[in-house]
Each structure stands twice: as structure tokens, then as C-alpha cells.
């Protein structure tokens, strides 16, 4: 039981670290694509291409680079989480009504002020829903980390497969499903509030 709790915490920490990093990188990439139009489609294509690479293949290649351990799985999760965040940041920024941007410019706001005071706040509900997709995906991808020597709930699942022990598999699987459903639900509630607020 104590072990299981430890795996759950480890799993969560891996997912949270990866999410924080990918939110940072994803939003910055989204902003770059928004400010510098010609870069938008290469950035989006890159994040889409990364997501097309099979999980095990990407993780195995990252393992060659970073070795065994948590760094490898975190960097893999960051790469996989990019697409929803980058795409939603970009779409969110692009779809801010032109009249509002015009008004902000008319008030004498600089480009950065417009971004932080007007455009990002308006795009935030959409960015948040991108983050939600990333978190839910990362929870289940993180399981595969066990194959490249990282911790988390993948460990009891993999041990269970090796020993054909159904209980052990489920002891890893059920917490993941509960967390996925819980995160999905909670973040959907926040998402709804945010978008109502934005209107």
C-alpha cells in the first residue's frame, strides 16, 4: 500500500514537471508563431510530426541521448504535450477579435502590453483546454516510462505483466484511470468557468 502511494506520487510528479515545462515552451512557441507569421506553420508542423512518432520509438531514441531514468520520460512527455498547447495558444491568439486588438493599440499599448494584458488573457480559456488534453495524455503515456527505467505507476503494471498478476496490474492501472478522469473533470469545470468569464 505504502509502495503504491509512492508510485502514485512519483507518477504525478513526473507528469506535473513535464506539463509545467511543456506549457512554458508551448506558449512561447505559440506566441512566436503568432508574432512571426511565416514561422507559424513550421512550428505547428514540427509539433504535429513529434506526436506522430510512435511513443516507444521516441522514448527509446531519447534514452540513447539521456540514458535511463526520469529525465528521459519527462523530455518525452514534454515533446508529446507540445502539440495541443502550441496549437491552442496559436488559435487562441489569432482569434482575438481585431476590434479589441485595435482598441488596445488605440490606448497606446505596446506590443508586449497588448500580449500580456489583452491577447493572452482572452486566449487563456483555449490554452487551458490544450493543457487539459496534454495532462490527460501524459498520465497514460508516463506508464511506458517504466520500459526506459523511470519510476511511477508503470512499474507495478509492468511487474504485473511479467508475473501475469492481474491484481498487480490493476493496482497500477486503477489509480491512473481515476487520476485521468478526475483531472479531466476538474479541468473541464475550470475551463467552463474561464470561458464564461471571457465572455
Amino acid at each position, binding site marked *: 500500500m505504502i509502495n503504491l502511494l509512492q508510485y502514485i506520487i512519483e507518477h504525478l510528479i513526473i507528469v506535473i514537471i513535464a506539463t509545467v515545462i511543456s506549457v512554458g515552451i508551448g506558449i512561447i512557441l505559440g506566441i512566436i508563431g503568432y508574432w512571426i507569421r511565416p514561422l507559424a506553420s513550421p512550428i505547428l508542423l514540427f509539433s504535429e510530426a513529434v506526436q506522430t512518432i*510512435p*511513443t516507444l520509438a521516441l522514448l527509446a*531514441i531519447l534514452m*540513447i541521448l539521456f540514458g535511463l531514468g526520469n529525465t528521459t520520460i519527462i523530455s518525452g512527455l514534454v515533446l508529446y504535450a507540445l502539440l495541443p498547447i502550441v496549437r491552442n495558444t496559436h488559435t487562441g491568439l489569432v482569434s482575438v477579435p481585431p476590434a479589441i486588438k485595435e482598441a488596445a493599440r488605440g490606448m497606446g499599448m505596446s506590443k508586449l502590453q497588448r500580449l500580456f494584458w489583452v491577447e493572452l488573457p482572452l486566449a487563456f480559456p483555449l490554452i487551458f483546454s490544450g493543457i487539459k488534453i496534454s495532462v490527460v495524455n501524459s498520465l497514460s503515456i508516463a506508464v511506458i516510462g517504466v520500459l526506459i527505467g523511470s519510476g511511477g505507476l508503470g512499474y507495478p*503494471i509492468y511487474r504485473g505483466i511479467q508475473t501475469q498478476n492481474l491484481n498487480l496490474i490493476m493496482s497500477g492501472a486503477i489509480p491512473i484511470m481515476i487520476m485521468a478522469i478526475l483531472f479531466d473533470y476538474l479541468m473541464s469545470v475550470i475551463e467552463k468557468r474561464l470561458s464564461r468569464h471571457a465572455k
Partner: protein
Amino acid sequence: MNFIAFIYEHHAEILTSLLKHIYLVVFSVAIGILFSIPAGILLSRHKKTAEKILAVVGIVQTIPGLVMLGLALILFGVGNTPALVVLSVYSVLPILRNTYTGLTEVQPGLIEAGRGLGMTSTQLLFRVELPLAVPSIISGIRISTVYIVSWAALAGLIGAGGLGDLIWTGLSTYNTNYILAGAIPSAVLAFLFSGLIGGILRFVTPRGLRGNAA
């Protein structure tokens, strides 16, 4: 180069794994299509039940792939069958959801117009609704296929063969050549499938929808 020598030496093994991988993907996506499209059509006629069923299928989808493979291993033993069962189950959701959304998002005006022309409901389905839903269905198939190429690599763990086998051998013996020999072809395979289906998608999109559809 070491890697090139390795590829040359092991080309038969790599080719067999690649073909096996393609077989796993094509077979399970085909099953997914055969099941999901009729099921999606059925669901689009019963919208209230549909939302519930889609929610349940969505929950099944949150079960990590490794767990499903583990369960299948215990239920069906090692080999092809458990892998094909799991992969087929996984390929269902994206296609089912996109078939359903594609059909329910057909503009009511168009269905009305079809009915006004005296079409029966079967004619409406095959001449109006399905053709308009095809782009959405095909992009569901594309999402499914890319996923399945990825999951099929994991299926190597339960003895299904395929490129995952090579990656797995590489990981457990820390042999970079094996890892790359499995990882690179599987990534290329995913890109090829995605590009191919993307091409089909552009081709089958009804002329009136081109330009505004994804």
C-alpha cells in the same frame, strides 16, 4: 558507419518486423473501420444513448495501452491474438467518434433539401449524409492509424513481433543499433500512413467543402 553495417547484416530481420508491423496496423484498423462506421451510423440515429456510449468508450480509452496489453496477455496468452484484440479495440474510438460527429454535424437544411427531393432515408444516408461525413470519418481513421502504429510497437512486449520487438531487444540489451533499427522505421511508417491518409482525405472531400474543411 556501424549502424549501416548493422542494417545490412540484419536486413532480413528488420524487413520481417516491418511487414509484421504493417500487418498488425492494417488488420486492426480494418477491424476498427468495419465496426465503427456502422456503429457510428447507428449511434447518430439514437443521439441520447450515443452520448452515454461515447462517454463509456472514452473511459475505456483512458486505460493505458500497457495495461490493456497486460490484460490481453493474461486472458489470451502470448502472441498475435491478444495484440490484435487490443489494437482493434483501440482503433475504434477515434473512428466511431468522428463518424458520429461527422453525421450529426450535417446541416439540417441539407437533409431537409434531400427529403424535399423525395429521397428515402436510406438514400439520404448514402447520397447526402455519408458523403458529407466522409472527411470527418477519414480523419478519424488517420488518428486511429497513427495511434495504432504507436501501440503496435508496444505489442512487441507481449510477443506479437513487429518493430517493437527490435526496440525492445535494443532496450533490454542496451544495443543502440537495435533501438534505431526499430525506432526509425516505425516513425517513418507513422509519417507515411499519416501522409497517405491525408492525401486520401484531400481527394475524397466533397468539392463544396474544400477550402473550409481541415
